[in-house]
């Protein structure tokens, strides 16, 4: 029983990372109808920035915040410089650019910081505030930070005028422009926010998997699986899907398939969901009234 609880709680911690990435992917998908394959490498690159700042002697949380600011601006720049000009281009152009971005970030990180693995510090104390053998202090902190971040994002989209405008611009850009919303600016903001969410995920997972340019490869796959399970049209669903993937991955790894096939598991889930419930658990089945 202890093993089951341990694995479940640990799964929630990695699930928090998947949930963040799934959310970042869905945020961009909602706005531009494309899957950002480069989300993981962007997160990895952000994490390297934080690592560099810490290596230069900056305190963790200062580096954390500067890294978020950098990611936000970086995300906006990527939208403005690369994706705004190809906004109406066909889907293949987008895919090619996503792949190119992935490779560029990967190679650039390797070029600047080389490919050897690096330790990335955990910001959380070594001991839990309570006695428990079921969850480690870092895992506990990761879940906490992620929940706070998700809560803030929910409040932002649900209750602020800018959040409402962003949802409007993503759902109906023509009408949004007609009420005076700058759809371009909202798109940039969306990319910035997604990059921030990804950066948090990167910095939270790095202490566990160690920092190196290929760190996010498998993790992003789980993020995608989470997004697909939850439903690409539902940010809340993507978050739930991410947590679910974390737990399922751990339980399947412990009891059924062992750790070698873990990644395959994510792919099987993606294929199964697309086959049997393409809208995902919480996604909206698109019905057109004609």
């Amino acid at each position, binding site marked *: 029983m202890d093993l089951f609880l341990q694995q479940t709680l640990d799964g929630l911690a990695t699930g928090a990372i998947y949930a963040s990435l799934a959310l970042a992917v869905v945020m961009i998908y909602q706005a531009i109808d494309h899957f950002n394959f480069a989300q993981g490498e962007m997160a990895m690159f952000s994490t390297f920035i934080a690592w560099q700042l810490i290596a230069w002697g900056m305190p963790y949380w200062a580096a954390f915040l500067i890294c978020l600011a950098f990611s936000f601006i970086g995300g906006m720049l990527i939208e403005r410089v690369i994706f705004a000009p190809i906004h109406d281009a066909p889907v293949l152009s987008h895919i090619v650019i996503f792949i190119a971005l992935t490779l560029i970030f990967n190679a650039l990180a390797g070029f600047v910081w080389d490919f050897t693995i690096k330790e990335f510090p955990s910001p959380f104390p070594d001991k839990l505030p309570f006695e428990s053998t079921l969850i480690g202090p870092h895992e506990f902190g990761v879940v906490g930070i992620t929940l706070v971040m998700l809560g803030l994002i929910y409040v932002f989209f649900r209750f602020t005028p800018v959040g409402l*405008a962003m*949802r409007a611009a993503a759902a109906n850009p023509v*009408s949004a422009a*007609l009420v005076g*919303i700058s759809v371009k600016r909202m798109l940039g903001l969306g990319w910035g926010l997604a990059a921030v969410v990804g950066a948090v995920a990167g910095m939270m997972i790095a202490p566990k998997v160690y920092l190196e340019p290929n760190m996010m490869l498998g993790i992003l796959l789980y993020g995608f699986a989470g997004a697909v399970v939850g439903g690409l049209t539902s940010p809340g669903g993507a978050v739930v899907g991410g947590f679910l993937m974390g737990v399922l991955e751990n339980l399947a790894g412990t009891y059924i398939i062992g750790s070698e096939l873990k990644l395959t598991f994510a792919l099987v889930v993606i294929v199964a969901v697309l086959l049997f419930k393409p809208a995902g658990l919480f996604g909206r089945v698109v019905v057109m009234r004609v």
Partner: protein
Amino acid sequence: MALLEVSNLVASYGPIRALHGISFSLEEGGVTTILGANGAGKTSTLRAICGMVKTEGSVHFDGQDISSRPTEAIVRRGVAHVPEGRGTFTRVTTEENLLLGSYSRRDKKAVQSDMEQVYGYFPRLKERRNQQAGTLSGGEQQMLAVGRALMLRPKLMLLDEPSFGLAPLIVEELFAILRRINEDEKVTMLLVEQNATLALDLADHAYLLETGNVVIAGTADEIAADETVRRSYLGY
């Protein structure tokens, strides 16, 4: 001085020209209608004014050239466009739709009272304020589109076929409210309609468009009395 002065306006969708250099002007406070058959360029005229299609020529609004401005900047100057198909934000509530209408307003304090004013014109929207806007009926969504436009406190309202797809009784109700809005709020209106009888009844001035050109212009009464218009568009 005219509130809107359009001269030699050309609009194209890619290689296809929809407007071949039309000119017209709107007097402040009036209701002007653009009549014409399908494909005459009525919707394109409204879109061109709002910068939603590629244009040449000039559009002066309130004394300033707006012809090369992005849509959202034109809207912020007080041009509210009630689009073809109503443009509802379907996944948010009725009230959030109205809030979005006031998005570009600086005087946020007046928004609440303006919302009450919109509910005054359209009590049905108040009953449905927390309902997802996509579930409203066609008539209610049209009212919502007008309400959303009003939330901008516009100087000029562009109305693209507000009667489209609505039951005759609803249309009558809607046009009565449009008349009240024009009179009480002093909102200048440019109305595009297929239903010429209805449009000429509300409007004081009218233009007739044929394949991207203005062919007849005059007061609504003159146009209504015109032999060709009567036969081709009023059907008697």
